[in-house]
């Protein structure tokens, strides 16, 4: 074991801190994680954080202030590999659902009034790949323990992570659940990235799409399927947008054209 340990930094931008917390929640494995790699920075867990070169940076949260943009650019410069962890970093999270910048500004004013913030400038929430190149995306709201540990272990060995690219429906079938869509329940499983183990349908609760959309999500097909089942179009669009972050733009684009 002469090989030097990997230098890893875990960073939190704007979000619920759930992904960092999930890493802490890997209780039994946590001590091994700290032993297996040099954790250079992990604000939630330790106070002696360094700001040097990194082999891997894990970044949670969306970019929602000017400072965070600078911080992210700095992390990118220092890191050989940058991994976005969690829905906010991957697609912008629920805070990115104000797609229109003007609408976001209007809402910011409604919330905070005309206060001119001295410490930091708020910014329209964006996923991190709006500013830097992202090597891998570890989705989830929050990320899944199994997927995180397997990714972490593969990176320790210098291998790229292997992530699911299929929708929740696949896992749901593995778990032998009855299809909720067949019961006329508004479920977003067909659009949503797998990895959660179809936890909500396992509990008779429909998928809300919190892991974000799969790459090959067939938005239009799901949309018309739900319309056929008699759901309100506005309701469907909102439900789809909740956790899709900026990716929902892919789906909305054809509708915008239609309107014109």
């Amino acid at each position, binding site marked *: 074991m002469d090989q030097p340990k990997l230098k890893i930094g875990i960073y*939190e*931008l*704007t*979000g*619920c*801190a*759930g992904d960092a*917390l*999930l890493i*802490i*929640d890997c*209780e*039994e494995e*946590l*001590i091994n994680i*700290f032993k297996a790699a040099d954790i250079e920075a992990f*604000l*939630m*867990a*330790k*106070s*002696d*954080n360094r700001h040097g070169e990194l082999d891997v940076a894990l970044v949670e*949260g*969306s970019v*929602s*202030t000017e*400072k*965070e943009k600078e911080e992210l650019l700095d992390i990118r410069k220092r890191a050989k590999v940058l991994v976005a962890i969690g829905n906010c970093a991957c697609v912008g*999270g*629920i*805070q990115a659902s*104000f797609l229109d910048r003007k609408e976001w500004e209007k*809402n*910011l004013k*409604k*919330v*905070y*009034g005309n*206060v001119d*913030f*001295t*410490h*930091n400038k*708020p910014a329209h*929430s964006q996923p991190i790949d709006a500013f830097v190149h992202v090597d891998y995306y570890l989705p989830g*709201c*929050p990320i899944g*323990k199994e997927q995180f540990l397997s990714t972490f272990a593969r990176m320790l060995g210098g291998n790229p992570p292997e992530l699911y690219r299929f929708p929740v429906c696949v896992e749901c079938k593995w778990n032998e659940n009855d299809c909720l869509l067949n019961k006329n329940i508004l479920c977003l499983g067909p659009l949503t990235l797998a990895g959660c183990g179809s*936890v*909500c349908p*396992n*509990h*008779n*609760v429909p998928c*809300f799409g*919190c892991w974000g959309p799969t790459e090959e999500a067939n938005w239009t097909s799901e949309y018309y399927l739900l319309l056929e089942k008699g759901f309100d179009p506005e309701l469907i669009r*909102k*439900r789809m947008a*909740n956790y899709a972050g900026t990716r929902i733009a892919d789906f909305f684009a054809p509708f915008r054209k239609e309107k014109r």
Partner: protein
Amino acid sequence: MKTISIDHLARVEGNGGLSATLDGKVVTEVKFTVNEGPRLIERLTIGKTPEEDVSLAPRICAICTLSHKNAVLRAMENALGVKVPMKVTLLRELMHMGEFIESHSLHTFYLALPDYVGFPNAIAMAAKFPFEVKIALEMKQFGNHIMKVLSGRYIHGENPIIGGFGKFPTREELIWIKNRAIQFMPFVFRTVELFCGLDYPSVPEAETVYACCEPGSDQYGLWGEEIILSTGEKFFRDDYRKLTNEFVVPHSFCKRSRYQGNTYSVGALARVNVLGERLQGEAGRMFKKYFNARWKINPLFHNAAQALEILYAFERIPELVDEVLKYPDDPAPVPYQVKNGQGTGLVEAPRGLLIHHYEIVDGLVASVDIITPTAQNAEEIERYAYLAAQKLLDDGQEEKIRDRMELIVRAFDPCISCSVHMAEIKKSPAENWKARLRELLLAEPIFIGLGRRGHGDDEAGLTLAALLKKDGFKEVYLEEEFEEDHILEKGVGRPLVFLDIVNMGERPGKIALLPLQHVFWNSVLTHRLLPDVANRLTHEQIKRSYILGIQPQSIEEGAPLSEAVGQAVHRIRGIFLKEDRRRLAEATDSFQEKDPPFDQREKRQHES
């Protein structure tokens, strides 16, 4: 001027900072900043269905996700008139206990303890405390396990829904939880002894008001329909705004709360201070053993209070499981019609009182108000950090300030993701100057009104001083009647407060209490007397002097006093009158009980 700043607070949940500005021997400012960006949760939950908000709102925070879940469910069920069966209520409480165990054990052992035993983090601490670190991890894991069984996963579980649960836990799962809880008891006692027995420094200590949920029926508990204060006052859930009155400060994305102009504390310490007498069983015995007067004034005892609550939760779990097992059938979610209405949900999150309020119109959520514990504690964190920094500076221990401030912030167990809280502003922001003025009044300062008549707002200081004189305040002088030597004699050992207009670049009528030093640096003086007096004051006296300044609108010759500034004058006068009445009432009370202290006797003579 020097700033001690902690840009990224380590070992707290989320991204925040704290800074203190020192000016010689005076701490002029302490700021608790929240660096997480605004997420506008309260806006993006609008226009959604109640079911969607039950999923979206807990995304505010991963650490208190189930507290948010319980709060949003209670609010929605109140709004929709849904009454859940007993089994559901009991299981939700069990779920809440899981979160308390998870959050408290994480905070006490992993985030707070390293400070008290001198390690940078819990992993390093493991070398010296292997047993504690290991079992605490298991305890936290047990809390997580309960959350997972009931909510579906560790974080952001979706199993709890309006009217019940998607799926109920099995009998075997519940019995396992009960047995495991009993197994932990020896370690839980050790936890209480460890944290209640820690040597908490006596800086800072100051009285405050504590607020928490009133669980009703003389029980200790983690939710209720009312808010109870340590003063004995109670508010019904829908009247929560009487307590919170939120406002925004420019240096943070976290909104602030004050009660009647004063800061107040929420959290484990608040609950133990207000409800501790109601603790039963072992938790009750431990409370009697360890609770003392210092718990009421020292925020560092948050850690001890959390340990006590870990014991409470471990005792409560077997009781809850036994109760739940009396209901073998799993009730289907209560059906409901979406109707117009409003609802508030009050819950004690691990770090304090959490309030969710929703209004539903035409089946969609029309307005949202969420008040998180850290938003309420933000002002307290600043206040205690300020008190500590000033005390340490007075004692010549400047090098300790940074660590001590960090200790204080951490004791409050702030959840910074939560604190990024967005509500519509309904009132103009309250100001820090009121509390500072009250503190200053205790030191019996001398007030000097400055200004020029017939120059618009420039006469504000004189007007205010004249009014106060008329109200019977003794130590108030006007610039023109003032002998400079006289002030210097009187001013020995007492603060001087100049009443004047100050151009702060703010809206007209804005009030600020600024250290005189600050004013010299940002030189905005128009008056002859002030520089004269200041030149003759000793260094010490300058440090103790302030300007109570009002932002003028116009100081044109011949203009009248503007309306905004006129109102500001009356607001300041109001504080003086209120404070005087309060002190008089206190003096009268203590006079009846025993001989009043000398200064109050003098005051009474002055009044008669």
